[in-house]
């Protein structure tokens, strides 16, 4: 900008130069900074409380960190991983994790999809039904766990008696103390608790499908099953893919129900990797070893996610 233009009375005045230049500069600065000011508090918090601990946690995996041992803290290299490779409990937890995650996701998804389809049709009282069937989602996970643990308890819960009555069990015992069956307890609680998540997500996707597509298809003579296969499923597919992927990762990390219901028992039959990490950190206060397991779990999960993404890419490029 040209200052001191003789035609312009304003420009010549020295006050004008002093007062406006800095405000212009200040405005530019403020404009440039504003977005960061809005997001800074959230970012600072995320970085200090999540990112820094994450990096620390990774470093712990290579150090000897035991809370009760004041002489710990030294660098131990890959020792934890060597121990881990010999740790039968870890391998059992890994197998249990597969079992736990696979069944939980599968059942949640199937029942969630059915529920979403049921709720997609308008009917009298749908709003209330929707509120009621989604209620388990609001139940705190620890309470869901306790609640189901009590239901499985023959003293106060009806389930063992019912199972006994229909002949599934030879006597009304607590399945949570039966090594063969114990894992089904947390799985059932998890399914109960997680159906709403799938149902809500899929319902929203269902409702985003343009209604006139269905009308067009019926006019073209498609029956309900054909409509489901040729319209509903293709539309839902992306949502299903991403929800199942995210949920799988999430559930394999979800230790609350197990810690509350069985605490890994009986005989470690329900110990999953996430609860194993927690047990190492919380009970044995061996943070180094816990971090090493956590790091392995993280790597496994990242590998899994990558595999899924690559697989999806490959499937997409095939057709």
């Amino acid at each position, binding site marked *: 900008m040209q200052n001191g233009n003789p035609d312009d009375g304003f420009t010549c005045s020295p006050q004008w130069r002093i007062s406006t230049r800095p405000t212009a500069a200040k405005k530019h600065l403020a404009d440039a900074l504003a977005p960061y000011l809005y997001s800074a508090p959230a970012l600072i918090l995320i970085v200090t409380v999540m990112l820094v601990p994450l990096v620390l946690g990774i470093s712990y995996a290579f150090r000897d960190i035991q809370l009760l041992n004041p002489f710990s803290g030294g660098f131990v290299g890959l020792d934890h991983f060597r121990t881990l490779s010999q740790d039968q409990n870890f391998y059992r937890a890994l197998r249990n994790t597969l079992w736990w995650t696979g069944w939980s996701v599968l059942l949640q998804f199937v029942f969630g999809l059915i529920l979403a389809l049921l709720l997609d049709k308008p009917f009298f009282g749908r709003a209330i039904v929707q509120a009621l069937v989604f209620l388990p989602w609001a139940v705190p996970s620890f309470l869901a766990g306790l609640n189901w643990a*009590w239901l499985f308890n023959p003293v106060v819960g009806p389930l063992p008696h019912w199972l006994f009555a229909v002949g599934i069990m030879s006597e009304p015992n607590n399945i949570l103390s039966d090594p063969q069956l114990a894992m089904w307890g947390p799985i059932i609680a998890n399914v109960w608790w997680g159906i709403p998540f799938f149902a809500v997500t899929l319902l929203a996707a269902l409702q985003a499908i343009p209604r006139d597509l269905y009308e067009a298809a019926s006019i073209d003579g498609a029956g309900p099953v054909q409509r489901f296969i040729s319209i509903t499923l293709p539309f839902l597919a992306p949502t299903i893919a991403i929800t199942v992927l995210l949920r799988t990762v999430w559930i394999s990390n979800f230790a609350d129900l197990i810690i509350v219901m069985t605490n890994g028992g009986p005989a470690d039959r329900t110990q999953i990797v996430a609860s194993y990490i927690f047990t190492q950190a919380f009970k044995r206060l061996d943070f180094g070893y816990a971090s090493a397991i956590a790091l392995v779990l993280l790597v496994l*999960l990242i590998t899994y996610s990558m595999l899924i993404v690559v697989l999806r890419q490959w499937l997409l490029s095939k057709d």
Partner: protein
Amino acid sequence: MTAKRIVSVLAHRLAILAYVAFALFPLYWLLKVSVTPNKLLYSEGIKMWPSRTSFEHFEFVLKHSEFPTFFKNSLIVSGSTAVIVTMLASLAGYALSRFNLRGKFWIVALMLLTQMFPLVMLVAPIFKMLSPLGLTNSLTGLVIVYTAFNVPFATFLMQSFFDGIPKDLEEAAMIDGATQFVAFRQIILPLTLPGIAATLGFVFTAAWSELLFSLMLISGNDAATFPVGLLSFVSKFSVDFGQMMAAGVMALVPACLFFLLIQRYLVQGLTAGAVKG
């Protein structure tokens, strides 16, 4: 044709009914046991409703246990977390929705990353970080941790609500004489109230339910939250089912109230955020 229709409608309603029953039965049972007097607990253990009900368990829990403290602690922690997270997430979500942020990609990537890794990884390092600051065994520490955990998702959620509000509105306000921040406060925020309610409810419920970190960070009874209190109660007095379930009902109430208030927004809003996040 009509007979077929009736059958299909009937099947639909029955299926719905089965879902409602499955969803509500455990909660119903919790309530039932909590109002069953001790004397009838074993004799009428699996009857659908006891022949006599009483509130003796609630009375005991309220008067002779530390649950009121736990309840208060949980309320403080969850309430503060919800309010702080919603404020931070509104600001950050607004920035993501409205500004051409340089480094936006990295911010989003960072937030997505935090949704991806197992939080159990952080149990040990967070404990180690907080204990020299005196923030273990303290409600403040819990609020800080929970706030950080919930901010990323809440930010995505708020962003999707802001994205739904036309940019014209705040431009009109700025031309009318508002600064960007005044336009944000007076025009955009009021229009995002459903989103704010959904975020508040979501975060409150999440904080109310959190177990692992409160188990790890809190040891004394003074700062124990409801989950920790209930769990220690369970391991100590694992036979007093009536009292435990009465406490359980108390833990259920705030979360369910919040949920019922906001569930219609959740269905609209959460999914948008959930699919994106």
